[in-house]
């Protein structure tokens, strides 16, 4: 994966400026709350339009203000897992899982539903209403649903925030197995050093809407210790 980003966005008094290139498969975006992490994620997913700049993923421009390119979110193939699972309450687990897969062109369906169901151990849940799932089950279904849309880039916005320590430790192996099995490039957004250490190889450090550092995760962890 090669992601090239150079964008600016002004929201009231807050200004985000992000300029970086990421070529690894697991990159973290680290910063305190209000540092611009989530704004950047919304911009990358196409859910928020930057004021200027460009975003290029594997040579394909997703956004380019100068050339008036702005690929809509539904055509970007950039998957998003939000902090809250946001499973569709009117659909059962199986229909939630297949929501994105059914909307993916057959030629792009590189991941089979059966393999995701197996890796995430979702078989017993398929017919259940999503309102009956536990917090961990909900996040597994949300992850499966996003991965089944076969994204070229996976964005995870604090997916483990709000889960207790035991639940986090249960989910992380599932996450790693999915990422290892399908080699999906990941941008993992978090304000937790522990999660960044477990999930990423290099990391972008943001504060006050600016990129302050781009360094290997181990260096950030070593510096923090």
């Amino acid at each position, binding site marked *: 994966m090669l992601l090239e980003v150079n964008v600016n966005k002004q929201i009231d008094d807050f200004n985000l400026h992000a300029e970086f290139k990421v070529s690894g498969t697991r990159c973290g975006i680290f910063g305190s709350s209000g540092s611009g992490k989530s704004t950047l994620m919304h911009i990358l*997913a*196409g*859910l928020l339009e930057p004021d200027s700049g460009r975003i290029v993923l594997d040579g394909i421009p997703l956004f380019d203000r100068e050339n008036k390119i702005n690929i*809509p*979110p*539904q*055509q*970007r*193939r*950039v*998957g*998003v897992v*939000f902090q*809250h*699972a*946001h*499973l*569709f*309450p*009117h659909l059962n687990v199986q229909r939630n899982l297949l*929501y*994105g897969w059914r*909307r*993916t062109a057959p030629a792009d369906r590189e991941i089979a539903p059966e393999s995701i169901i197996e890796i995430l151990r979702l078989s017993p849940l398929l017919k259940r209403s*999503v*309102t009956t*799932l536990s917090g961990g089950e*909900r996040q597994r279904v949300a992850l499966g*649903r*996003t991965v089944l*849309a076969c994204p070229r880039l996976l964005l995870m916005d604090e997916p483990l925030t709000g889960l207790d320590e035991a639940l986090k430790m249960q989910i992380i192996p599932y996450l790693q197995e999915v990422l290892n099995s399908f080699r999906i490039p990941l941008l993992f957004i978090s304000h937790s050093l522990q999660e960044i250490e477990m999930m990423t190889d290099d990391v972008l450090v943001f504060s006050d809407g600016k990129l302050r550092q781009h360094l290997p995760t181990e260096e950030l962890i070593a510096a923090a210790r």
Partner: protein
Amino acid sequence: MMLSLTPQDMEAISLSVKVATAATLISLPFGFAAAYALVFARIPGKPVFEGLVNLPLVLPPVVVGYLLLLLFGRSGILGPVLQFLDIRIIFTVKAAVIASAVVGFPLLVRSIRIGMEGIDKQFIQTAQSLGAGGWDRVFSIILPLCARAVLAGMTLMFARSLGEFGATILVAGNIPGVTQTIPLAIYEYTNTPGGDSMALSLCLVSIALSFIVLLVSEGSSRSLRTGRRI
């Protein structure tokens, strides 16, 4: 007291139900679109649009009826076009449907709008990032998540249509068997010597119909889920 209904009353009841059903069903797609535009669309002059949608709610129904006459009457704005197409609206059941639709429209839009505003926007963003385009999101996410509100709006509008009087009497008249709905028949009975018991019978029918509508609405909405975050 025995409930006694004449064949003419039965026609008025049947016509009321037909007019209310037609007005509600015809208004539904427009009401949904108006609510969608008010909640999700970025359109210039939104407050003006909102005001126009809500106007029939605050205008006296007689004024609405008069404006409809100015629009659809023989010498009205659309009069020549309607005459050319050989379509007669005033003093027909079509006029009763239009009057009910216009008067009840704000109630329908208001209810659907409240339902749409209650949908967590991240459901829609999630659907978008999963590949759902505009119409797809409307039918697969927005409509199911505000189905209760749509049903509530339809119920309100249906009930309002059943009781519509002012606009209807102006544009549709009070022709038994043709445009006479329950409120118009009650009005006629109250102006007829000895018609009190007949008027009361129709009042009871009106109460029963409204109650049935509420029961049906309540029963159906229980089986639908709201747009809460999971």
